[in-house]
């Protein structure tokens, strides 16, 4: 039998790496659940849930919408009184601060701070996927779309 040269195995490496890159979902399926039970995460989720009661009417009417990167943004304030708009501006700023902290805390709780950006993207996708029909979201091209 002809002996296999070491160079043969080295030549397979690029193909192996390409397979790993092409099929990230295979390893993802068997990955353990993320830790989302830290005190900070639970507290942030409560804060977001409490604020949702105030944001929901504006989501329902399309005054505000979700963004592809996991935040909320003002969409159409034409119908709003100035005082209401000022309050809403504060609510949006607080909401986005909590959301940003949530993504950072999940990354930190799982000892992978470098995941923060990917978590934000994943949450952005899931918020939009889970939101009711009729709400608006801003896509990656900056366009507002009604679901």
């Amino acid at each position, binding site marked *: 039998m002809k002996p296999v040269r070491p160079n043969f195995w080295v030549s397979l490496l690029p193909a192996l790496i390409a397979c*790993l*890159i092409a099929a*990230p*979902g295979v390893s*993802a*399926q068997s*990955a*353990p*659940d*993320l830790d*989302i039970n830290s005190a900070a*995460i639970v507290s942030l*989720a409560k804060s*977001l*849930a409490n604020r*949702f009661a105030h944001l*929901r009417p504006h989501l329902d009417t399309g005054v505000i919408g979700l963004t592809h990167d996991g935040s909320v943004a003002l969409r159409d304030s034409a119908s709003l009184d100035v005082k209401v708009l000022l309050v809403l501006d504060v609510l949006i700023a607080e909401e986005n601060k909590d959301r940003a902290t*949530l993504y950072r805390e*999940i990354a930190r709780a799982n000892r992978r701070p*470098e*995941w923060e*950006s*990917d*978590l934000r993207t*994943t*949450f952005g*996708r*899931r*918020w939009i*996927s*889970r*939101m*009711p029909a009729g709400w608006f979201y801003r896509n990656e091209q900056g366009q507002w779309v009604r679901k």
Partner: protein
Amino acid sequence: MVGCASTLFFPVHPAEKAADKLIDDIWPGVAKSPTPEAKKQ
């Protein structure tokens, strides 16, 4: 390069499960049906 490595090893499926669980808590009764995995978590 760091970004590539992060994306390559980022656990997409567990992250989606975590997102669905938290979205259920934050938008109770509002979010469209969660994935079966999120229900189990």
